[in-house]
């Protein structure tokens, strides 16, 4: 930022504001306008990389962040971003190098500690991951990044009660409404509250219409909450297929004992039809979508 003339400070603050509230497309446009005036400003290059990363343009993000590191951008921040980029590219060994390098610069950085914990969890070092996450939470229990990864830890280990509490904390500290809404949506999805989930993702998508991940999730929620899948959801809600199957066997035995063969036959046919329907409903849904287009 030091290389940018004073007149541009307002423009810089505006760009930064867009970035912080999660409007990455606008933030990137604003940062790009500043680039000709400060082509070797480490911080500017870092934010361009971060915007590109958020907009799913991983290669461009990597180019910018490497440029930022060469131009003396704050090592911890840039290395953490490079680590995230490597994780997205599934270059996990390189991601580990970046994050450990960042932690060697500052072992007290709770956010990067949590990020490293998540990398360990994803690559199968579960015990180490848990210990790292405990350490990150000890260092800074109210850090946005720590809470973000802690939320995914709790989702992965299916700790529902803890998840709710983490979200509440996250709501207090998070800057971006899109991030908040996404977390609320995911939690609703875990509770199988599809209406709530859809509303969260829809609002998030309205705030950030270029986010392809959000669009994908929204389509998926629309899919699973569609009336065509009602029998599937009913079965899932009432104990799942195995309970239905056992119930069906018990009912058949009972009806046979009572020699109600007609009722037994109708029940059997209905059950088989229901089962077949729950299996073919994805195909029905696909056909339905095609017809609606």
């Amino acid at each position: 930022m030091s290389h940018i003339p004073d007149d541009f400070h307002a423009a810089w603050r505006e760009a930064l504001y867009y970035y912080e509230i999660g409007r990455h497309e606008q933030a990137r446009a604003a940062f790009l306008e500043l680039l000709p005036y400060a082509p070797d400003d480490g911080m500017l290059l870092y934010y361009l990389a971060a915007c590109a990363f958020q907009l799913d343009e991983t290669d461009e993000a990597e180019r910018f962040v490497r440029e930022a590191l060469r131009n003396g951008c704050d090592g911890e921040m840039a290395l953490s971003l490079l680590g995230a980029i490597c994780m997205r590219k599934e270059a996990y060994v390189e991601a580990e190098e970046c994050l450990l390098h960042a932690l060697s610069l500052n072992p007290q950085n709770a956010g990067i500690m949590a990020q490293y914990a998540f990398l360990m969890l994803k690559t199968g070092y579960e015990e180490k991951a848990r210990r790292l996450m405990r350490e990150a939470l000890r260092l800074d229990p109210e850090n946005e990044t720590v809470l973000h990864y802690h939320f995914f830890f709790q989702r992965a280990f299916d700790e529902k009660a803890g998840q709710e509490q983490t979200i509440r904390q996250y709501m207090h500290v998070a800057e971006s409404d899109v991030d908040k809404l996404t977390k609320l949506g995911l939690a609703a999805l875990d509770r199988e509250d599809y209406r709530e989930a859809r509303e969260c993702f829809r609002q998030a998508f309205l705030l950030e219409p270029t986010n392809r991940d959000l669009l994908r999730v929204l389509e998926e929620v629309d899919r699973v909450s569609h009336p065509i899948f009602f029998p599937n959801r009913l079965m899932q809600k009432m104990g799942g297929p195995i309970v239905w199957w056992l119930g069906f066997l018990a009912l058949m035995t009972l009806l046979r004992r009572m020699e109600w063969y007609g009722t037994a036959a109708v029940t059997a046919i209905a059950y088989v039809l229901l089962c077949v329907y729950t299996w073919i409903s994805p195909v029905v849904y696909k056909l339905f979508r095609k017809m609606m287009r």
Partner: protein
Amino acid sequence: MLDQELLRPSLKEGGVKATKSYDLDKLIYVGFFGGILPVLALGTVNAVWLRADKKRTMLLLTAGLTVLAARFAAIVATGEEGAAFVHSRLAGIVMAFAYRFALKKRYRLHTVLQGEHKSMAKAGLVGVVAGFVAEAVLIRLGEGIHHVTHTG
């Protein structure tokens, strides 16, 4: 105090050990069409991929094989296949549910972290065909043994 051990690289020496998994909800189709054998095969592979508890994996496999052995013994004893084909499919469906239930936690972990499942289409199809062949062989073998021991 931070344990320095935690900041030592793991992936460089240990390698990436990310979990893998089929879409376990599809295992029931394999059971329905292919019977118990392909379910046991794919279920065990999947349990290993998910790094599920080894004891649990072995218990499921043993339970499935015991059922299979008992049914085979019945064919040897009577010399008739009876409804063995249908029984295998019923047992396959039950085992598919058992795997889904026993692997629930590990499957959830995998789904949240990796976000994708391997397609079971190819392995499932191969499993169903191989299951058919293996079952036919077992049934003939059972009847053959009965024949030899009861006429000889």
